[in-house]
Each structure stands twice: as structure tokens, then as C-alpha cells.
């Protein structure tokens, strides 16, 4: 087992990894930028190394600085968290050559899954359902036109190397095709240094459903069921839950089995998440895989009782899945879990809200979990992402989880900065959300509805 792990991250996920290490009796090294000197991950680690100025590119993304910090502290392994260097195959490689264990899949698997089209083809070969789409990269608008006819409009083109919505265009008719294709290509080239595009069938009202997997170093991969992450705004997830109201036990088993086979073949190791879109008929279509722990991993932990971050560490150290995950826990999820992402943002305008937290009162009690690195009198720096806390509720069923989340949101008090807490309170009170009637366009409709209500209120009071 590792004696000491360096956490190449910050915020709540750094603290999450520190918790897992402490519970395994492993020493921890925090790295931090000048802006994070007073952070909790620095406070609670056994050692801490300042690796650079506030900007991520000069600190948390600075591979030599991170590796040097690991070397001078005699670290055995590095946990990359999510974001930052977590899906950087180059970083995983440097770790390997520096004799430091990277807690994640091997670099070549990270690289394979990082190229969307290759990942699609890998999935397709083992019969994981993928969206109807182009095979390989599309070079020209002409070629794209042919594919579109074959797939059927509407279609969507995406950047092979992409993410976050860039290099992406929905095309509903042939007349739009050439213009959209060319601008997507240009955008992709600018954003990722790679203009490669591929095409997929476009689903008008998809649900975003993803499967959590774990793989050991002995060729075994298991699925731990799904998470529903359809509540998004501009491709940013706001709220996740498990299980999905739309996934039957049969579908869960079927997809889980296919994923286990496919990923074992690919040589997948450690934790990962396979993302699907669900179409209006309830069928799942693979879109991409994230080769790291996910922000929303807690909902899976709550319903399976499995500590995913501890599992990551144990698997990286060579443990067998059969030894660390009792057969009992593998089937039969228990209850329902919901996670609300509490961001330091204005709850209506979504503008970031950095600054000093004056009051920070977290809710507690039965079925409530809070993952956070924020604290009263602490400062949210403007340099990093706006997630400051994850509020997770667990109940015997979805209704109980919702009621519990509602009371926890009422009791979660943050003063000094804006947060998305009021937004989540409104979502939880929404009959459509409560009935499970949503898809990835939900937030657009929901925000429009809120806006309309405000307008009407103003009209009434005028």
C-alpha cells in the first residue's frame, strides 16, 4: 500500500481525497497556489507544498512543479482529482517515468478515450450502443452531407478533441449544413489545435445518463449503476441523482454487462464514467467517457455504500475488485440520492461571485452529506471554478430524498457571497422536477418560467 499520496488538486475534491487517505492510514501532501494558502486542503494535509502563483497554468497545471513537489516529499502516488491534470495523458506518463503511481487509468487509455471518435469506435466494437453517426473523421462539407443523409436530420457535428460545447453545431436541414460545418471546424481548430469533426444523430430532448465503472489491475471491470445528470445549464451539470427514474433494472444490468466487457478489453483501470444520452424511446447511446473520478460521484456512493475514492486508491495499489467490493454490495442499490452543486454564482444571473464568506452554516442530520472546503471567514478566490460545496441527500426513495434536500437547503446558510442555493430551492419545489419530468433542456424552460413569473408579479403589483 502507498505510504504517502500527493493530491494534485484543490477545493472540495482535494479534501475528499485527504479524507479517504486518512481513513486508509496514508499520509497526504497538499499542493497549493499562493491564492490557496489558507485553504482547508492545506490545513488538513500532513504536508503542504506551495507550487506557484494563483493562476492554474502556473501552479495546479504546472506539471514540473507538481512532480517536483512529489519528489521532494517522497510521495508514492498522485491523485489528480477531477479537472486540472486528471485527464492529461502526458501528466500520467510523466508520473510513470518518475516512478510515481498515477491514480487513474494508464496514459494510453486516457489518450484513447480523450479522442471522442476513437472512443466511439471502441465502444461500438463491443456492442455498446452508440448514436448513429459518421465512422471516423469527416474531412469536408461534402462528405458531411452524405453522412447526414444516411443518419437522417437533425444531426450534430462535434470536435473529436473537444468538450464544453465548443466546435459543436446542430444541423436541422441540408441548407444549413455547409455554413455550420465550416464554422464548427474553424472553432475546433482554434480551441483544441485540431479541427477534426465527427457527426451524430441529434436527439431533441435527451436525458443525460452516465454509468460509474471501476476496473482493477487484474483485468476485471464492474459497473456500479447509473447517475441521471439531465439538470444542466449550458452543458454544466447543476444537480445529479441516482438511480435514474428512467433506467429499469434490466437496462442497468444489460448496459453494465456490456461496459464491463468492453472496458476489460480496452484495459480500463480505476474509476471512470461512461456518458450516454437517452432518447425519447428510453434507449441509451454512448457519447463519451471520463477517465477520472466525477464531481457527482457521491450519489453513487450513497446508494451503493461504496467509497469510490478509497476504491481508486486501493485499485491503484493493486487490490482486486473481488476483495474490496463485497459481492453483496454490487447489486441492489439502496434508496435514492440527490446532489445539488452549490456554486459561488448569482442564482439568477449565474455571474461568478468570488469574495469572503461571512457566514457558513452547513446543514446536518440524518441522510445529509456535505462535501466542501469552504468555511466561515474563508475567501473564494476568483481564479478557479465556482463549485464551493456539494449538498447530498439520501432517502429511502426519491420523495424522501427530495424532502430531505428541501429541508437541508432551507438550513444551508451562506452570507458574503452569492450562491446557487436559492436556485436549487426553486428546482426542488418545481412539480416537473418532482415528477421526474425533465431532460437536458429542462433548465432553459425552467429559467424561462421563472422569468415569466417575475414579469407577471411585476405586472400585478404595478
Amino acid at each position: 500500500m502507498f505510504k504517502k499520496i500527493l493530491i494534485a488538486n484543490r477545493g472540495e475534491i482535494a479534501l475528499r481525497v485527504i479524507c479517504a487517505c486518512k481513513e486508509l492510514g496514508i499520509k497526504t501532501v497538499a499542493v497549493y497556489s499562493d491564492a490557496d494558502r489558507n485553504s482547508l486542503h492545506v490545513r488538513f494535509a500532513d504536508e503542504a507544498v506551495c507550487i506557484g502563483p494563483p493562476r492554474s497554468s502556473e501552479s495546479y497545471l504546472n506539471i514540473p512543479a507538481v512532480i517536483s513537489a512529489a519528489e521532494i516529499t517522497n510521495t508514492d502516488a498522485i491523485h489528480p482529482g477531477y479537472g486540472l491534470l486528471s485527464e492529461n495523458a502526458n501528466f500520467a506518463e510523466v508520473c510513470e517515468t518518475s516512478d510515481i503511481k498515477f491514480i487513474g487509468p494508464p496514459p494510453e487509455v486516457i489518450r484513447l478515450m480523450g479522442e471522442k471518435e476513437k472512443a466511439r469506435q471502441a465502444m461500438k466494437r463491443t456492442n455498446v450502443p452508440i448514436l448513429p453517426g459518421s465512422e471516423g473523421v469527416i474531412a469536408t462539407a461534402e462528405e458531411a452531407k452524405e453522412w447526414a443523409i444516411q443518419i437522417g436530420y437533425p444531426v450534430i457535428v462535434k470536435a473529436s478533441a473537444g468538450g464544453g460545447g465548443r466546435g459543436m453545431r446542430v444541423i436541422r436541414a441540408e441548407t444549413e449544413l455547409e455554413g455550420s460545418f465550416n464554422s464548427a471546424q474553424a472553432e475546433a481548430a482554434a480551441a483544441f489545435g485540431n479541427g477534426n469533426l465527427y457527426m451524430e444523430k441529434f436527439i431533441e430532448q435527451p436525458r443525460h445518463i452516465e454509468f460509474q465503472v471501476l476496473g482493477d489491475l487484474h483485468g476485471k471491470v464492474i459497473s456500479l449503476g447509473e447517475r441521471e445528470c439531465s439538470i444542466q445549464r449550458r452543458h454544466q451539470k447543476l444537480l445529479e441523482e441516482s438511480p435514474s427514474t428512467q433506467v429499469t433494472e434490466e437496462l442497468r444490468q444489460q448496459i453494465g454487462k456490456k461496459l464491463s466487457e468492453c472496458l476489460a478489453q480496452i484495459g480500463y483501470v480505476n474509476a471512470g464514467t461512461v456518458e450516454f444520452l437517452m432518447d425519447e424511446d428510453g434507449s441509451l447511446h454512448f457519447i463519451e467517457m471520463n477517465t477520472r473520478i466525477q464531481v457527482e460521484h457521491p450519489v453513487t456512493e450513497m446508494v451503493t455504500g461504496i467509497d469510490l475514492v478509497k476504491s481508486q486508491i486501493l485499485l491503484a495499489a493493486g487490490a482486486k475488485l473481488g476483495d474490496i467490493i463485497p459481492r453483496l454490495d454490487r447489486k441492489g442499490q439502496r434508496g435514492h440520492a440527490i446532489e445539488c452543486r452549490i456554486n459561488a454564482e448569482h442564482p439568477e444571473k449565474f455571474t461568478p461571485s468570488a469574495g469572503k464568506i461571512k457566514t457558513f452554516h452547513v446543514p446536518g442530520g440524518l441522510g445529509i452529506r456535505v462535501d466542501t472546503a469552504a468555511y466561515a471567514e474563508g475567501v473564494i478566490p476568483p481564479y478557479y471554478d465556482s463549485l464551493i460545496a456539494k449538498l447530498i441527500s439520501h432517502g429511502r426513495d426519491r420523495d424522501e430524498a427530495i424532502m430531505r434536500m428541501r429541508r437541508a437547503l432551507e438550513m444551508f446558510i451562506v452570507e458574503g457571497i452569492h450562491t446557487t442555493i436559492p436556485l436549487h430551492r426553486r428546482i426542488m419545489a418545481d412539480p416537473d422536477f418532482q415528477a421526474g419530468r425533465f431532460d437536458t433542456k429542462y433548465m432553459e424552460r425552467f429559467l424561462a418560467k421563472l422569468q415569466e413569473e417575475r414579469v407577471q408579479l411585476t405586472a400585478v403589483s404595478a
Partner: protein
Amino acid sequence: MNQKELKELIEFLIEKDISEFELERGDVKVRIKRGSEAAAAPSVVSVMPQMMAPAPAQVSAAHPQPAPAQTAPSASAPPAAAVVPAVEEELHMVKSPIVGTFYESPAPGAPAFVKPGDQVQAGQTLCIIEAMKLMNEIESDATGEIVKILASNGQPVEYGQPLFALRARK
């Protein structure tokens, strides 16, 4: 308000035990908060920052200390400062621009680049920091006299850690 007025004002505020003072001239805006809390200097601050004090062993202590189980409301000085000796005069600090291992000489057994009392020029190599098997020469960013070497040979140093105290020549 000129320098002199400002100094007077500050002295006056101290004398009168004023702990907070704000002023804006454009359309006036005053804010004054009196002592009592003064003793509690970082008064409201005390809430968490105490707890935030660098409990974990900083990298400079390569021999890790026991886990920070204690809630030590330890010194609230920034981590690196722990290494810095009490400085009576205002010295210039040459800080480490990278994380790595500090070497005072170009090779094992070779004489140190500099020693206390040496006069150095801006741009002159003061030490080597090894990071990822690469030897990085660290140059002085000021001209003056080396007063103290704050890191020891073979010791790990972090970003921003003071390495040399210099009496800068103007």
C-alpha cells in the same frame, strides 16, 4: 491629504484607540470603529483564520510531523515565514521561483556559489534548484550583500520560499 497629515492621522487614531477607520471624500463617507475590539486585533478575523494557521508540516520540514490532530491555534504567519529569522533591518529576500531541492554549490564537494558577506550582482547565480532531474541555476534578482542563506544544502524548497537575505544596494 499629504504624507504628513496622514501620519498625524494614523498617530491620532492609535492614540485614541480607533481600530477601524474609513473615509471617502467624494460626497463624504466616514466609518469609524473604536478600540475595545482592538486588543482582539484580528477580531472578527479570529473566527476561522486561527484554525487556518499552517498546522501541517510545511515542506521545509521534510521530516513530517505527527498528523495535525491538534487544533493548534498556532502562529498565523504565512508558512514560508516560519523559516525566516526575525529581521531587524529591511532585507531583500531572494525567493525560490520553483519547487525542488536546494544546492548551494554547482557540484558535490565544490565550493558554494556564495557565502554570507559576499557582494553579488543582479543576475549572478546564487544556487541550484533541482527539479525533475534538471539543475536550475537561480540568479539573484538584486545587487547587494548576502546577509544570510536561509536554505540548507540538499533541503527541499517550495515556490516562494525565501532562499537568501540580501542587504540591497540602491
